[in-house]
């Protein structure tokens, strides 16, 4: 393989189109919760990797919020050195099996790929996913840990921001304890994103890996309730807050509190964290509607609508006030949702949820919209069409219009500065907050964004914390952490 790869280098790429990943057939997968794509096999990965031109200036890297050394790892894939390729990625991104699956690549690394200018971009995400899975399945060596520094750091919240920060600090020799409010670590990765998109075994593997690095993870522990940030500062040398944007936004329309109106968080938590899809063996119930309407068109909405289908809904409908072009979800998710028969009602917006005599949902009243001039976000502004009221009968409604920052920490930490949106104000280049020795990052600082942005923030904070602990000056390092919005 090695010699072949060498030959192909420097040669004009002949393959213009990317190699698709094999997936479960739509008619099969809507009946199970197994992962949809199977992932590349070794031969496919090598084939796709050969499409990479190994550009010297590597624009793709600038599209990645944590600057994964993309050409370097892809070169190792070309050479069949998969474990080494994973090691290269892990110098910048500690959770590649996850980001390979959930990053909005089409807006990030792959958006800048040179191949994409004329043909299709290299499947960077699929390759990242492949090498991470390969390394996991073929046994990764634990990195050598430095001498303990004797410094202690508390991390609040076990989402991607907190876990990344914890991992980086452990690798620098610090003693790290992660406090998590729920009974399992992972944040949105464990309670929000469904099994069919991100198998929970992968999340568990990654959290176990951290435990092997010596990170202590304490579940069922709510900072602000069991202990305050102030108290943590007495026991620890520094505190990182990565509590996410876990407070559901609800629509201000009549009927929002009818029975069987869910926030996407509730619906997905019942199914993912508590395995409601295995009810009654697992005891947490979830309503299996005949017609389920999800409002919104981000990743969260796609996850909810596709979950509903898998729970047996005959119709799973997405109602979104803009058009397909404006869907904030990953392109792959919208595509998979379409394949699975999700019924998209674009340019449609709900005005009222209608209940029956027992206070249960029976229909949704909507208005049709048309697109007008671009608004302040640059997207065409949807304008309601007069007299277009219509009723869609349904028995479950899921609201997936976004999340606000989790309020527990700001409420219980006086002097911690927050914005009018409730996010914790940080220096985005260092993760520092208004409180000495307290750092923050991820969705709690930016509002709902992406997994990779949260991880990037965790990394930046880990660097600053390390400098503080070692008595160095904290400086603002240059990096291009652009926070892609994922406003559901």
């Amino acid at each position, binding site marked *: 393989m090695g010699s072949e790869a060498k030959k192909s280098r420097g040669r004009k790429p002949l393959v213009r189109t990317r190699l698709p990943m094999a997936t479960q057939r739509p008619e099969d997968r809507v009946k199970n919760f197994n992962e949809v794509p199977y992932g590349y096999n070794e031969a496919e990965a090598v084939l796709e990797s050969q499409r990479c031109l190994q550009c010297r200036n590597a624009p793709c890297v600038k599209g990645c919020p944590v600057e994964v050394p993309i050409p370097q790892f892809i070169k190792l894939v070309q050479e069949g050195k998969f474990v080494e390729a994973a090691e290269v990625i892990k110098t910048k991104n500690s959770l590649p099996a996850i980001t390979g699956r959930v990053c909005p690549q089409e807006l990030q690394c792959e958006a800048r790929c040179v191949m994409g200018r004329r043909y299709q971009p290299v499947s960077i995400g699929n390759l990242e996913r492949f090498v991470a899975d390969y390394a996991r399945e073929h046994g990764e060596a634990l990195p050598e840990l430095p001498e303990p520094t004797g410094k202690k750091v508390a991390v609040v919240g076990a989402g991607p921001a907190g876990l990344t920060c914890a991992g980086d600090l452990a690798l620098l020799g610090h003693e790290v304890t992660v406090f998590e409010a729920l*009974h399992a670590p992972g944040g949105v990765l464990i309670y929000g994103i469904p099994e069919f998109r991100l198998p929970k075994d992968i999340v568990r593997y990654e959290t176990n890996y951290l435990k092997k690095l010596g990170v202590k993870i304490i579940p069922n522990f709510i900072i602000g*309730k*069991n202990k305050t940030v102030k108290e943590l500062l007495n026991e620890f040398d520094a505190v990182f807050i990565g509590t996410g944007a876990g407070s559901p936004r609800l629509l201000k329309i009549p009927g929002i*509190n009818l029975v069987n109106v869910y926030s996407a968080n509730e619906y997905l*938590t019942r199914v993912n964290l508590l395995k409601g899809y295995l009810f009654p063996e697992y*005891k947490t119930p979830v309503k299996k509607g005949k017609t389920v309407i999800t409002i919104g068109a981000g990743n969260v909405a796609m996850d909810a609508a596709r979950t509903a289908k898998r729970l047996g809904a005959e119709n799973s409908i997405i109602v979104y006030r803009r058009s397909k072009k404006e869907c904030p979800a990953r392109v792959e998710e919208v595509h998979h949702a379409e394949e699975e028969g999700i019924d998209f009602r674009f340019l449609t917006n709900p005005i009222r949820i209608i209940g029956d005599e*027992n*206070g249960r949902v029976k229909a949704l009243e909507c208005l049709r919209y048309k697109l007008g001039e671009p608004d302040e976000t640059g997207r065409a502004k949807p304008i309601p069409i007069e007299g277009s009221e219509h009723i869609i009968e349904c028995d479950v409604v899921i609201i997936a219009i976004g999340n606000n920052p989790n309020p*527990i920490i700001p409420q219980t930490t006086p002097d911690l500065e927050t914005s009018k949106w409730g996010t914790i104000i940080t220096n985005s280049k260092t993760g520092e907050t208004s409180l000495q020795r307290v750092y923050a990052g991820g969705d709690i600082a930016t509002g709902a964004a992406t997994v990779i942005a949260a991880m990037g923030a965790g990394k930046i904070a880990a660097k600053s914390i390390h400098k503080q602990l070692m008595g160095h000056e904290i400086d603002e390092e240059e990096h291009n952490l652009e926070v892609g919005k994922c406003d559901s």
Partner: protein
Amino acid sequence: MSFEILDTRELNSENTWMKIKAPLIAERCKAGQFVIIRANEKGERIPLTIANWDKEEGSFEVVFQKVGASTLELGTYKKGDLLLDVVGPLGIPTHTEGAGNTVVIGGGLGIAIATPVARAYKEAGNKVHVIIGARTKELLFNIEILESFADGLTICTDDGSFGIKGFVTQPLQEMIDKGEKIDTVFCVGPPIMMKFISKITEKHGIHTVASLNTIMLDGTGMCGACRVTVGDEIKFVCVDGPDFDAHLVDWDEMMARTQAYREEEKIALEHYHKCRAEKALEEQNAQENK
């Protein structure tokens, strides 16, 4: 991390008392707060009010009513068994300062919750009259504990088998009719009971607090399962409550929402009984094979 059960006792045919080791919870908790328990990997997250606690021993107590699959299963746990997950104390403690002449009302299982709250009102310097009620004599409990500190105690049963025959609203109405000075009413129990108490006190302009037990999931404000309409606002019971101004709560909406899983609860119960029966059979077979 697991949580050891230090002791259990059947209070009566419906209610079980349980003491659980959890120093962190015992150290912090205050009257009116609750915990969420997930007994095992397949379990539901069950919210239960902290009925009592002992800082020195590092333990707290709950009393629960076996109404469905999850609470029935929890009832099979015995002294020495481990609970997989316990998180708390959750919710805002009951505000007891300056409540004045207070009537604390506990209906049914609500007696367990009313007890520490009544004690907290008393300890905060208020005069406390307690009214408790149950369907029948057998389901009453905590009488001696309440007698030991309350300034007055009235007991009712629906069937008249003990104390006054009738609902807890009756003695409350009588106190009001007699012109007794009442500054605050605190109530906890079935929503329908709280709704009627609220109707009575509203007429007389008596400040009334109700402790709500909506359906919950995470208990940290993440899911909105517990939401209720209070006045013209939506509140999350787990983080904004569980106590709310009873006159502002939309009771009908809340009652409908607690019934959300009626059908599923039946399925869960059937499944539970089937599993218990199968397990019993297996054990019997194993015995015979020995």
